[in-house]
C-alpha cells in the first residue's frame, strides 16, 4: 500500500475494501465461479462503477473524475484491494478503454461509448495481444488495409479479458505498417468472439476473430498511422494495474501465511519459532515490500506521464512477475498438505498471479524492454 495516501484516498481504499469484503468474500467468489458466466453478476459491477471504479482515468468533462487529482494512483488502490480479495470484474480492460476514449477519442466517440462504460452498463476491452507474439506493443501484427475511405481488418486477437462480455473493443492494428487503433463493436459483421479457457476462477477471457471487418474512418482512434504512443500509454496503464494487483495478492497471502505459522505447532513449538522458517519469511517480507515499492513507483511514473514510465513499468513487471509466483509457492510449502487442496484459498491467489504475470509481457519480455531503454547495443564514447 502507498504510505502517502491522502485522507480522501484512505477513505476511498476503506470503502473499496469494505465493499469487496461484504459483497465478494472468497466464498462468494467460489460461488460466482460456478454460476456466473461473466464471473460476477452485472449488478455488482454497476455498484462498483458507482464507487468510482470505472471513471478515475476519465476527465471530469467526460463524466469521470479522480479522488486525488492523480487518477491512476487512485485506481491502483482498487487494483491492489482486488488482488487482496481475488475479486472478479473487468477493472483493467474497462479502465484502459475508458482512458483510451478520454485521452484520444473524438467528441462523437466519447459521447457514443463513454456514458455506458462509466455507469457500468457496458463493458469493453482492449485487443492488443496476438497469438505467437509477446504481449507487448511491439507484438501487434494484425493488418488493417485501406479500401476507399474505409479500413478492413482481418486477423485474430487474444486472449482478451472480458471479451465475451464486451460490447465493443479497442483493437490495435497496423495500417501500412504503422500502429493504429480502432473502435470495433462486438456485433459488427465479421467479428466472432469465442470464450477461452482460463486459470483464474472469475476473471474470464475470450479470443476475438476479425474476418473482413469493414470500419469507417470515424472508427479510428486518433489518427491512422499515429497509434504507437497511444498503444504504449495504454500498455503502461495495463502493466501498472497488473503490478498493483500482484502486489496486493502477495501482501495478503504473506500475512495469512504468517498467521498460520503462529497457530500451527510441530514438536511442541509454533512453526514461527523455527529460524529456518523465520528466515524464509524475512526474505518474503523483503520481496513483498520491494514489490509494493516498485509497483507504486511504476504507477507514479505512468500517472505523471514521465519519460521514465517506459522503463519503470518494465522494472516493476519483471521484478514482481518473477517474485510473486515464488512467494506464493513458498507459502504453499509452508502450509503443508492443506496448501495443495481445492478447498484452501491459496490456489485462487496463484491463479490470479500467474495470469497477471503472463499477460501484457512476461518478465522476460519486460527485461528486453529494459535492455532497449538502456540502449545497450549503442557503444558510447568512453
Amino acid at each position, binding site marked *: 500500500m502507498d*504510505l*502517502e495516501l491522502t485522507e480522501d484516498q484512505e477513505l476511498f481504499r476503506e470503502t473499496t475494501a469494505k465493499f469487496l469484503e461484504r459483497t465478494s468474500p472468497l466464498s462468494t467468489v467460489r460461488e460466482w465461479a460456478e454460476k456466473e458466466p461473466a464471473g460476477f453478476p452485472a449488478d455488482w459491477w454497476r455498484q462498483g462503477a458507482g464507487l468510482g471504479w470505472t471513471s478515475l482515468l476519465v476527465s471530469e468533462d467526460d463524466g469521470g473524475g479522480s479522488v486525488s487529482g492523480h487518477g491512476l494512483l487512485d485506481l491502483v488502490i482498487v487494483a491492489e484491494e482486488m488482488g487482496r480479495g481475488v475479486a472478479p470484474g473487468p477493472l483493467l480492460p474497462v479502465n484502459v478503454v475508458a482512458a483510451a476514449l478520454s485521452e484520444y477519442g473524438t467528441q462523437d466517440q466519447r459521447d457514443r461509448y463513454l456514458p455506458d462504460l462509466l455507469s457500468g452498463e457496458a463493458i469493453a476491452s482492449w485487443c492488443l495481444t496476438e497469438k505467437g507474439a509477446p504481449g507487448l506493443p511491439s507484438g501487434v501484427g494484425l493488418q488493417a488495409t485501406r479500401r476507399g475511405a474505409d479500413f478492413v481488418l482481418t486477423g485474430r486477437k487474444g486472449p482478451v479479458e472480458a471479451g465475451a462480455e464486451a460490447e465493443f473493443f479497442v483493437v490495435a492494428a497496423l495500417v501500412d505498417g504503422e500502429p493504429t487503433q480502432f473502435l470495433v463493436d462486438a456485433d459488427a459483421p465479421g467479428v466472432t468472439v469465442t470464450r477461452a479457457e482460463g486459470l483464474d476462477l472469475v476473471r474470464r477471457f475470450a479470443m476475438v476473430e476479425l474476418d473482413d471487418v469493414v470500419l469507417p474512418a470515424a472508427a479510428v482512434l486518433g489518427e491512422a498511422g499515429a497509434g504507437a504512443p497511444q498503444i504504449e500509454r495504454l500498455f503502461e496503464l495495463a502493466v501498472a494495474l497488473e503490478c498493483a494487483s500482484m502486489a496486493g495478492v502477495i501482501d495478503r497471502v504473506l500475512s495469512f501465511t*504468517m498467521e498460520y*505459522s*503462529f497457530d500451527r505447532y510441530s514438536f511442541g513449538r*509454533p512453526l*514461527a*519459532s523455527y*529460524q529456518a522458517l*523465520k*528466515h524464509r*519469511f*524475512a*526474505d518474503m*517480507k*523483503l520481496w513483498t*515490500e*520491494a514489490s*509494493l*515499492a*516498485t509497483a*507504486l*513507483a511504476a504507477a507514479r511514473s505512468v500517472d505523471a506521464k514521465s519519460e*521514465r514510465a517506459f*522503463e*519503470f513499468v*518494465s*522494472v*516493476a513487471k*519483471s*521484478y514482481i512477475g518473477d517474485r510473486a509466483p515464488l512467494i506464493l509457492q513458498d507459502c504453499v510449502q509452508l502450509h503443508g498438505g492443506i496448501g495443495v487442496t481445492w478447498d484452501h484459498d491459496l490456489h485462487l491467489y496463484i491463479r490470479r498471479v500467474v495470469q497477471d504475470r503472463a499477460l501484457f509481457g512476461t518478465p*522476460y519480455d519486460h*527485461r*528486453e*524492454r*529494459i*535492455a532497449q531503454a*538502456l540502449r*545497450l*547495443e549503442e*557503444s*558510447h564514447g*568512453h
Partner: protein
Amino acid sequence: MATDRLDTDRVDAAPAEGTEDLEAFRMRARAWLADNMPPLQETLTPHQLMLQDEMGTRARELQRILFDGGFAGLCFPKEYGGQGLTRAHQAAFTHESAPYEMPLVLNVPTFSILAPTLLDFGTEEQKRAHIPKIISGEEMWVQFLSEPSGGSDLASLVTRATRDGDVFILNGSKIWSSGAFRADYALCLARTEWHVPKHRGLTCFIVKIHQPGIEVQQIKMVNGSSEFCQEFFDDVAIPAENVVGEVNDGWTVATRLLYHERDAVGGGSPYTSGVFGGRGEHGSGRTDLIDLARATGRTGDSHVRQLVAESRANDLVGAQLISRVTKGISTGKFPGPAGSLHRLYAATNAERHQDIALELAGAGAGAWAEGDLAGEKGIEFLSRQSGSLGGGSNEMQRNIISERILGMPREYAADKDKPFDEVRHNASPSRPR
C-alpha cells in the same frame, strides 16, 4: 529508546524556511562542480582511484575543496558545519557529481555511520570538537566493534575498559575494522561491567587511534588489498569525557550506530555524497555491467540483454525500496529496524550483481589481458560475500526482520538475563608475537 528526539531524525523534518529551492541548488551545484572538481579520467574507475589513494590523502583534499565551496555535509546541521539541506538536495548533488572525482572513501563509515551516531549521542563538546572537522575532511573515523571472539553476537565482546579516576584503561583487541590504519578516531565499544547481563555492561568511547599503547596491524584480504585491520590495546588511557552516551549504556549507542550502519550499507543514508559506478548515464545507477557487456561485444545476445536488464531492474527496485522504507520509518508506519530491509536487499542484490558480472565476463574472468574489465569482475567476485557480512550478516538481518518487524518469536539465547561472567563465550586470543 526515545529515538524520536535524536538529531539525525531532523533530516526528515520539513525543510527549514528559506531552504534553497531544489532546482536552483542543482544549477548552482552543477556550475560549481564544473569549476572546482577534477573530472573523472576515462582510464580509471572511481573504485580504482580509491584503491590508489591508500592513505586517503587525496580524499581529504577533495573534501576540503567541497567544504570551502559550501558543498560538504549537505544534510548535517548548520551549527556543526553542515548545510542543513534535505535528502533531495543531497540526491541532486550526488547525481550532478557523477562525472567528477569525489572523496568517496569518506562516505562509509565516517560520514554515514560515525558522524550521525556522534550527532545523536555525543555531548555538545564532542560534537563541536569533531563534526566540523569530519565535514571538512580533517578527521576520518572508523568503528571498533567486532572482536576476534565474535561479531554477530556483538554484545558478548570482551575488550575491557576499567575505570581509574578520570580515565578508563583499555585492554583487548578489535578486528575487521576497515580502514583503521588511515583513520584518526574510532568509536569503540568495550566492557566496563562484568557481573551484569551482557548488554548492560558496555560503554562506548571516542578513541584516538594513533597513540602509545595501540598497535594497528593491516590484514591482507582476498582481493589483495589490506583494508581490514586488527588493533591491540595495551593499557590505553581514555579520558572519561570521551564516553559517548552513559557509562554501561553503550548498547543504546551501539544500537543506534548499527541502525545508521544498516542505512549506510543499504544505500539509504542521507549523509553520503557521490556514488561509485558510472557517470550518471542512466540516472545515477551504476553502469559497470553495461560497460562490460559492450566490452565483450555481445550486446545483441538475448542472454546478455536479459542479465544486464535484470541487474538494472534490481538496482532500481532497490532505490524504490529505500524510498519506501525511509518514508515508512519517518512517518512511524514502519519500526526503526525496518532499515534491515534495504540492508538485506543491498547485500543480496550485490551477490546477484557479482554472479551476473561473472557470467557476462565469460572466460575473461579467469584470465585476462591487463586492463580488461572482465578481469576486474573476476577479482571482485572473490569478495562477493563482503556486503553480506559487513554491517551485520544477512542472517542477522533476517533475524531482525522476522523478530522485530514480523514479530516472530525470538531465538533461544542461552545467555539471556545471566551475568556475563557466568556465561560461556569465546575468549580473546592473545597477541601474536
